[in-house]
């Protein structure tokens, strides 16, 4: 509608390999980036930014899980546990060794990657729902270990206070400062994932997902690449855990229980398996929808219910609406929000000449 795709000539390899070959796509991405990096922090108050911070943390985790579930086709219900591995590794480094964030953050990710790789070993033998059960076991084992091994958990409470990170000597105290901090890592994670999935490794992941026997026949070392997938995905999860404990100021094992794993799985399924944008959409949807439905119910529910009933109605109706919308979106578009977005985009691409 607004642009032409014809007439974009690529004259160098660099242009051919660009993430966004079309000028309009580059402009659109730049506009979104300016909106969220410049406009939002300058105009929004603490509350909207705190909600955005929750979304940003979720985006990193959803991206990581999507690499494993969406791109490689290996189901995992262990995200919460990998997050806790990252969180406790970083928390211990920060409290005992006063490690700065640029050590604690990758260290948390790497430790999670190591544990994730070990958990991924059964994936060579078992697939699908059986692998899901194996990762579920990992979730429970890691939870139990953190709960009972006190040199990891830092005491009976299993919670370690983590001071906010300092960047160039400035401690990030306000919501706005931590927003910038989180945004940096989200951008990094998005760019890394976009590039990963179009590299040799990413193509191997997709081959394994689509047909692992065929992938093996064309020379892909399945064992190695499945473990890569687990390691990369767990690295992202570990980083998410570290970011979350920096944001909250504490690492506590009850923040990373099985329901968190299921929330993240919901994000990638609703957002769209095997797409980067889908992970972002899923994280936004799952984080924002409960908030939005409550806003809606609080504003208009007073018409239908008395105020004392309303307090009981809102949370329950919220769950009903949340569940209903998930079913609705998946029925309308089983391939997730990303596909829905692409359908809309493709419609307008040729509009009004739809032939």
């Amino acid at each position: 509608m607004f642009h032409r795709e014809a007439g974009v000539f690529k004259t160098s390899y660099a242009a051919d390999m660009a993430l966004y070959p079309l000028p309009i796509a580059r402009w659109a991405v730049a506009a979104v980036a300016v909106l969220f990096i410049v406009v939002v922090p300058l105009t929004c108050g603490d509350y909207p930014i705190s909600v955005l911070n929750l979304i940003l943390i979720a985006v990193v985790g959803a991206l990581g899980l999507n690499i494993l579930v969406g791109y490689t086709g290996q189901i995992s219900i262990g995200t919460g546990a990998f997050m806790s591995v990252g969180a406790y590794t970083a928390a211990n480094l920060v409290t005992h060794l006063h490690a700065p964030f640029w050590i604690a953050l990758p260290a948390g990710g790497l430790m999670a990657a190591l544990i994730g790789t070990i958990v991924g070993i059964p994936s060579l033998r078992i697939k699908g729902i059986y692998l899901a059960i194996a990762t579920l076991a990992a979730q429970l084992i890691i939870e139990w270990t953190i709960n009972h091994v006190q040199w990891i958990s830092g005491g009976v409470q299993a919670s370690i206070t983590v001071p906010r990170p300092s960047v160039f000597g400035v401690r990030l105290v306000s919501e706005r400062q931590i927003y910038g901090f989180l945004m940096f890592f989200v951008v990094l994670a998005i760019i890394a994932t976009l590039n990963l999935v179009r590299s040799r490794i990413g193509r191997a992941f997709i081959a394994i997902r689509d047909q692992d026997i065929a992938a093996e026949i064309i020379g892909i070392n399945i064992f190695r690449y499945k473990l890569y997938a687990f390691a990369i995905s767990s690295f992202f999860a570990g980083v998410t855990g570290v970011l979350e404990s920096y944001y909250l100021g504490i690492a506590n094992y009850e923040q990373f229980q099985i329901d968190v794993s299921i929330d993240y799985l919901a994000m990638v399924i609703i957002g769209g398996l095997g797409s980067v944008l889908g992970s972002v959409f899923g994280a936004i949807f799952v984080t924002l929808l409960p908030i939005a439905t409550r806003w809606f119910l609080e504003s208009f529910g007073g018409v239908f219910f008395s105020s004392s009933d309303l307090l009981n109605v809102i949370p329950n109706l919220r769950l009903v609406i949340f569940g209903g919308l998930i079913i609705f979106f998946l029925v309308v578009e089983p391939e997730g929000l990303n596909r829905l977005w692409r359908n809309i985009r493709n419609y307008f691409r040729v509009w009004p000449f739809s032939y």
Partner: protein
Amino acid sequence: MTTRSRSVLTLAAGMAVGLAYAGSAMADDKVLLIGDQCDRTGATQIVGTVLCPAMQDYYKLVNSKGGIDGWTIKGDEIDNGYKVPEAIEAYERQKQMGALMMTFYGTPQTVALNARIEQDKIPTTSPGFGISAAADGTRFPYLFPIAATYWSQGAAAIQFAKDQLGGDLKGKKIAYVYYDNPAGKEPMPILEALQKQEGFELRTFAVPPPGVEMGAQIIDITQRYHPDFVIDHLFGRSPSVAIKGYKGAGYPLKKVLGLVWASAEADILAAGGWSVAEGYNTLQFAGAGDDYPVRQEIKEMYKKEGKEPPKEMADTVAYNRGLLQAAVQVEALKNALKISGGQKPTTEQVKAGFEQIKDFTLGGLVPPLQITATDHEGGGWVQIFGVHDGKFVKETEWIHPYRDVVENVLKTAE
């Protein structure tokens, strides 16, 4: 007009009314806003669905009597579903609304938000949640647990066992049955310290969550260990499973004491009713039962409106805890208004208001709390009620034994 367009119109009209309604609620200026979090849909909804309505009822009662010196109280409640991200969002929203104080709901939520209340200087109560160390007001200046911590509960449980077993625990066997999570393990330092002091034998039995199957532990306790007294520190569904188990194994329930989250009507009913649980002892941080004037006042208030008293009142344990919680908040606001001289108090003044609470018992429902700048627990008072003839009967007055031991552990805690 078709049905469809009519319904659209109705909805539009409804939205307009809703917006007007939301607008009018914000227009009042003599309002003291309290930000409450609750769990009505998550893991602990069995408590939340009773405790939170009780808080709202108490605010309503105070407002119906003219509020505090003409100030009305508004309790804004947000459900966090026992999830941390939801709790953060709720906190930030209530902070933006200008809440003078808050209530947190749930241990992980309280732990996660503690750094924020210190930064924003908002006094917050966390009745029965969070970590025991929060009783120390010098280390956790803005967090007020109010209710007796697990440490105080453990000490009171040992004192009760001692009284039940003839005043001497030397050589006696005590079984500690706990939910295998941080909260379950928390009383252990107190129990171990008292074990040395009193010379009893202590054995611990872990119950893995969710604790709906406890056959092995019950056999271990009743057939092998034969303890003289049992302390149950269980949550959720497991207290009722334990009561049923002891009953089935023939262990006398009058030698069993459940700590605060194993002691509600719901646990008794889930175990098979009052006759099954006859003799079972429960530890309470707010008075249990119906015999308190404030409960009669709430019933009167509903009668005046021509309504039945809410069904939540039947669950007296959780309901009375909600009343305690709200009553302490209102008392703190009263003190804060005195400090501010009738102006709208600041959050710092509300904090000071909390730290002046004493001699406030609400007809026996609230223990003789004395909250100070250093003691945010208010003394660690509990009362023990036994199950007799279909209701909770008082076994002891308000007690807080072994304070020296509890304070010692508090000092050495990390």
